[in-house]
């Protein structure tokens, strides 16, 4: 009898114990430099898809990559979804409207600070403390820093999944494909050395595996 009571108490305590967060955190970086800004309509499509995949208590933020991306001011829209389904739908609609507004009024930036954006994403997602953390980089991955910006910093990407989306080929890549492949390899190495996992999705029709829960 005593054993039964002890077992029951243990089960009760185990069920009441705080559980690890199960929610999802996604931070998307949009490259707005030069001609890549024209690709943003595709980014809007990805954002809408991501919104449809996210659920209550998940966190989603979209930020632009510009000259200096390590800044909260570059965050275009951010949301942590409510616990109630009706509120979640409302938040999703508002978020989609914000993004549409941004895409229609975006101005190209002269430089591309991808590292700063990733640092900002890591800080944001760590602060939110979500169960899983994903950084989406919608860019050609060609980093172009303004003089004086120091980005030779080691990243801390333990527990992060970094997905590069729509990595377009530059004109120079067509001349020498090794540049494109080298760029991809360099980012992969950098992310994996920092403890993160790396994926590239260029076919935007196959986004099903984007957020694997």
């Amino acid at each position, binding site marked *: 009898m005593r054993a039964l009571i002890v077992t029951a108490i243990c089960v009760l305590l185990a069920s009441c114990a705080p559980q690890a967060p199960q929610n999802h955190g996604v931070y998307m970086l949009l490259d707005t430099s030069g001609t890549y800004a024209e690709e943003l309509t595709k980014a809007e499509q990805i954002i809408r898809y991501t919104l449809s995949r996210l659920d*209550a208590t998940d966190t989603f933020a979209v930020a632009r990559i510009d000259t200096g991306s390590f800044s909260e001011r570059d965050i275009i829209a951010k949301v942590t979804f409510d*616990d109630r*389904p009706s509120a979640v739908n409302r938040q999703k609609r508002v978020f989609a409207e914000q993004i549409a507004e941004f895409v229609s009024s975006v101005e190209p930036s002269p430089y591309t600070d991808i590292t700063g954006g990733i640092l900002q994403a890591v800080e944001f997602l760590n602060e939110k403390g979500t169960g899983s953390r994903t950084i989406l980089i919608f860019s050609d991955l060609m980093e172009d820093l303004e003089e004086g910006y120091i980005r030779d910093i080691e990243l801390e990407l333990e527990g992060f999944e970094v997905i590069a989306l729509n990595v377009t080929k530059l004109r120079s890549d067509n001349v020498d494909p090794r540049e494109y492949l080298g760029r991809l390899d360099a980012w992969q190495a950098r992310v994996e050395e920092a403890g993160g996992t790396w994926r590239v999705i260029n076919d935007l029709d196959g986004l099903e595996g984007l957020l694997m829960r």
Partner: protein
Amino acid sequence: MLGITPSPFASALLWIVLVVLAAYLARRTVHRAIRASANALRRSFRVASKAVTRSHERLSERNRDVLLAAGREAKERIVEREFDRINDTVRKDLSNYSALHRALSESIERIEKDHQQAVDVPPDPPGWVEAVEAVAKIDEREGRIGVGNILADIHKSLVKAHKEAMNAYQQASGERHKLLRHMRPDWRRIQEKLAKVGKNVDSLLSRSVTIDRHMQEYEDIVKGRDRAVSVLASSSLVNFFVSAFVLGIAIGGAMINFSLIARPMAEMVGGTSLMGGYRTADIAALVIIMVEISMGLFLMESLRITRLFPVIGALPDKMRVRMIWITFTILFMLASVEAGLAYMREVLLHDELATSALLRGADAATAATQYLWITTAAQMGMGFVLPFALVFVAIPLETFVHSLRTVVGLVAVGAMRALALVLHLLGMAFHYLGALLMQLYDLLLFVPLWIEERLAGREAADGVPGRSELQL
């Protein structure tokens, strides 16, 4: 290591001889050991088998008692109900007996009175006959001349009198027919009342026949006759399967009910919070359904339709009626909540569909919305009706619980009987295995045994008592 001679063959042969010799010397001990082990195992299994058989018999006895007790209780309820019905019939009809008697007497009295008044009165003999006789007696000479005039007057008077008499007769006949016509509804009323009385008496008679049958069965149960036990066991099995089937349907209904309210429940308790690994919204929806089923049980108990909780059945009538109203009110409120949640579910679904369409880039208003009220109304209706439908789960549940005891008992008896048989067979198997092992042991020692037999035969022929005889 085993080579005790330079030749392996010789060594092997020597080893075989030594082993066989040792085995021969140990033969009796080994036989005793095998026999003792086999007997011990056989006895153990036999004891176990007997113990299981005894338990099985006790369980059978208990099952029989349980079955008879349940049957007695059920039969008492049936007989009680039949008596209640008879009581109702008798109270309803016999309480009106004096009124009926009075009505019949009045009707009969009225009929008698009308009948007496309707007796046909013979018409008075015509008065002119005497006048004719008087005229006939007048002498011819006395006044034949005046006779003609007299006769004419008489004729005139007679015609007039006849006309009046006929009128009076026709009027009287009309009155009589009228009275007879008045008697008709009284007759019909009497006929109807008597038919009703006859019907009630027939009903009482048929009920008394039913009660007789039930009492006979009750007597069989009280006396614990085998026939009664077998009838009860069979009906218990039927009840078990039928109630299990109905409960399965009820579980299906509860699941539909659950799916109706689980989604909108997330609006109230949150969609992601977990409790013991399960979504709190799901648990909340389940709790609502369980509370509804519990209220249904209490309602059925209060109505004395089921008897799962004797405490409720034993409550004073006033308290019981109060409990009926309380449980019904709670059920009504929960049903209303469910209808609201079902409506909310539909609203959420549309909201979600519109959001998905927007995110897909499609037009949110493409869906035809003019008929959506049908599904909304259907869901709300289901949300409201299902809690009341679940109330009736109490009836099959009671039957299931009662019949489950019998079914579990029967299954346990069957299992124990099989176990006893297996144990008995195992005991026998070990007994014969011991004998087989001894035979196999002797098979290895066939050479020394053959020699022993030959020697024994020779000693017997020489008159020397053999070893077995010496042992004796």
